[in-house]
């Protein structure tokens, strides 16, 4: 009950802040008017302690006790300022999340630039997870990687990210909301026991000869962006020749066709997982492959960019068209 109320209140405040500061664009600098600060529970306790000390000092008209109390009160006030300053002027250079497979942790990369002053104990929070960056050296950039809990296939929406700090004494917490809508693509799990389709089928359905798995040497071709480093002919390169890539092709077929509908007996998610596994496997072998996912067709190609395109299509399968 109380939990629900609190949740509602947080949502209301979140909405107000969102309306107040609008959507953010990278890179951004944490400005004064978007930093919020409130005492922590430890801070409230410290306030109570100060009050008790003040009463004792006043009651006994004891100058030294009062002086000590005032000094500690001053320290608490200064710490509010230090806490606020620890965030102010911090530059968020980059915040992005690479796609992840379902079942694997979702990683968010954040790059912060403390600008002219060194920052300490900066915490980055997203979802229910957080990481602490102990020290951000001035005039340099610091990267942090936040691991979220594994998510289900599809798009994982992170509405906002919080950057917070309790530095220096933990008496107050300053924080800042970043409204950088993140839509993280979560690929289906690469699972399934079926072997790669043994008979690659041409677009027209013509039969081709099998022999998948037994890739044969095909030749060398110049390096193109997106080629896997594993395919580079490093020995050749070491002899002083330009970067070349070793090409293997299936003996009879240089192309694999993965079709969603072929796996019809399986449930949808299992089919997607099987397709994902085939894509990963084919890419690993350096094969050329194409994907047909009902209305979506991705033509024959190879390379990491192609792989990501295929996996992305699998991830978005069944999602509203606007998000494809």
């Amino acid at each position, binding site marked *: 009950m109380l939990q629900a109320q609190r949740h509602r209140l947080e949502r209301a405040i979140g909405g107000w802040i969102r309306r107040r500061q609008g959507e953010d664009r990278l*890179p951004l600098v944490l400005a004064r008017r978007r930093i919020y600060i409130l005492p922590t*529970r*430890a801070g409230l*306790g*410290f306030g109570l*302690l100060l009050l*008790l*000390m003040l*009463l*004792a*000092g*006043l*009651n*006994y*008209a*004891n*100058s*030294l*006790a*009062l*002086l*000590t*109390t*005032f*000094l*500690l*009160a*001053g*320290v608490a*006030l*200064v*710490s509010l*300022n*230090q806490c606020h*300053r620890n965030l102010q002027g911090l530059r968020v*250079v980059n915040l992005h999340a690479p796609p992840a497979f379902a079942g694997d942790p979702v990683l968010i990369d954040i790059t912060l630039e403390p*600008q*002219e*002053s060194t920052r*300490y*104990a900066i915490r980055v929070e997203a979802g229910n997870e957080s990481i*602490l960056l*102990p*020290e951000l050296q001035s*005039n340099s950039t610091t990267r942090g990687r936040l691991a979220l809990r594994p998510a289900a296939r599809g798009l994982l929406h992170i509405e906002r990210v919080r950057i917070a700090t*309790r*530095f*220096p*004494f*933990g*008496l107050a917490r300053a924080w800042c909301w970043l409204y950088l809508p993140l839509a993280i693509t979560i690929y289906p799990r690469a699972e399934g026991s079926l072997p790669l389709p043994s008979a690659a089928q041409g677009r027209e359905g013509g039969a081709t000869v099998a022999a998948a798995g037994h890739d044969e040497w095909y030749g060398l071709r110049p390096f193109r962006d997106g080629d896997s480093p594993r395919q580079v002919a490093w020995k050749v390169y070491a002899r002083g020749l330009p970067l070349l890539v070793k090409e293997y092709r299936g003996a009879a077929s240089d192309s694999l066709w993965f079709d969603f509908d072929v796996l019809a007996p399986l449930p949808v998610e299992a089919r997607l997982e099987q397709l994902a596994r085939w894509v990963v496997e084919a890419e690993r072998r350096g094969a050329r492959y194409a994907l047909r996912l009902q209305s979506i067709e991705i033509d024959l190609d190879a390379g990491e960019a192609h792989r990501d395109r295929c996996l992305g299509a699998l991830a978005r399968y069944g999602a509203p068209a606007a998000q494809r």
Partner: protein
Amino acid sequence: MNHPVLWVIATYVFGVLLHVDRLPWWSSAAVGAIAAWRVVATLRAAPMPSAWLRLGLGLALLLAVLAQFNSFTGLSAGTALLASMGAVKLLETRTRRDQFIVLGVGVFLLIAACLDRQSLLRVPLYAAHVWLACAAMAVIATPEAALGARRAFATSGRAIAYALPIALLLFLLFPRVQGQIWALPGSGAGVTGLANEMTPGAIQSLSESDEPAFRVRFIGARPPLQSLYWRGPVLHEFDGYTWRRRQGQLARRTELTYLGAAYRYRITLEPHEQNWWFALDLPTGPPQAGVFMTFDYQLVSIQPVSRPTAYELTSHVSYRSTEPLSVLGRRIDLQLPEERNPRSLRLAQELRSQHPEPRALIAAVLELFRSGGFSYTLTPPKLDLNSVDDFLFNTRRGFCGHFASAFVTLMRAAGVPARVVTGYHGGEWNPIGGYYIVRQSDAHAWAETWIDGEGWVRVDPTGVVAPERLTRGFFEGLAGQTINAIGGLRNLTLLSRISLSWDAANTWWKDRIIEFDLRSQFQLLSKLGISEPSVRVLALLLAAALMLWLLWVGIAFGLQRPRRPRDPLARAYRELCGKLARVTPREPHEGPRSYAQRLASCSPAAAERAVALLDRYAELRYGPPQAAENTASFAATVRRLRLARPPR
């Protein structure tokens, strides 16, 4: 020492150490043992003791405190309780909240120490504790950050430095409360001072103590040195052995006229847990409300002096009574126990018959002391219950108390009203601070006799026997008066100069800091030119001061300007990019060439000069090494560059 718990333990143990000489031994031992165990357990990641053990230990310590003090209130009992409970809490500190609570106990122990003792010597200790507590707070705030000791102390030291001004302003302006909100019994730890009775040998124990009784700063002229008699308890009732203050009905105070110069001075009295306030013989009246002048011209307060007290007085060293002694007054100061000291009584009768005039009688008794084989000693033999007979006819060795007692007895037996006055005599002149230190070893006793037509006349029989006793402690005073201050300083040994400087600093500390109260605050306000000081004015000033300080802290933290690069070329490039940013700012990923390209496409008008400069920079930076002048001329060109604002 990176584990947060270790920091917490250090703060707490330091807090206990501030009290270690006042706490019962078992309390310190328990704290030490538990803290040591906890340190080892933390380093070895040992499990915490069971809840039953903790509960048992807590109860045992609670009962021990109760058994020792019979209460939980009072500073000593409260401190022992706080220390013990902190130790028990230390056995279950797991979360940050627990750590914070133990830290709070440590800080509160510091406040208890401030309440207990305020000497200047302990101030560095207290300051160190504040620093340690703040550093510990910084470490436990974010344990994951693994803040190093250096960083923790640097961070908290910085915060303390910024907090100092507001602490002082709050100290000066925060309105003080007059009187206690609630009263707790004081610690009543051993204090020395004059008692309210005098037995043979009483002042002797004082004479061994070098502790200051009070300090006196004269405002304007100083009286002659031989008249520095500091009046304390006046003793009337004698049972043959012990002199006591008047218990029964009090006589009326005889009116006086004060003669000669008036001396104004300020006394800072050390706490002595008695009700009397010392004054130069004789003050014109009580210094403030709550203090009264008794019929025998002694200043007595309602509250005992339990904290350092400062007051201003005016005294005259000569005076004369304007009316005769009342009947009751005469009876009080002629009282003698009939069956005691028979030989002395007979001697007095004889002297009286030879010298009927009081003046002559006094002279005769003093002559007896001078030539009767009496000697002054601080280690006199013990006296029997007929103490005056024993002293006058047997031992003949004693100090001020013996002589005063014998003198007054003889006077009374001869029919002259007389009384014993105790107090202090003389004092050490501190040329650095410009005041007298009167120590317990300056304790003295003298006599006052009533002479019809003159009033009370001070007679100091000790001075007859041991004139050097009255000049002892006067040496520095003489030096201070006859030579100027610097000359006096030069004559002092290094050691005594250090000790006098220290005493001067201590006195300043006591006068100005420890004694600071609402009255001092109002005085401060009137010095600032505020005609009607009030708590309201204080509060307003405080609010203004707080605002100014916050502004200062805000500015001071904001002024951390980006450091300018040392390299002149980098500086010039930075300046150039700053100027070109009016056209279009350089993106972080752009080098000089790509920036130049984009600039050219952005604003052809500005581009020509800008591109040339950017190319020049690239050449200087990445080309073959060039002479330093080229860099300088590049920098100069950049400085001269003026760009028109691009049309919108």
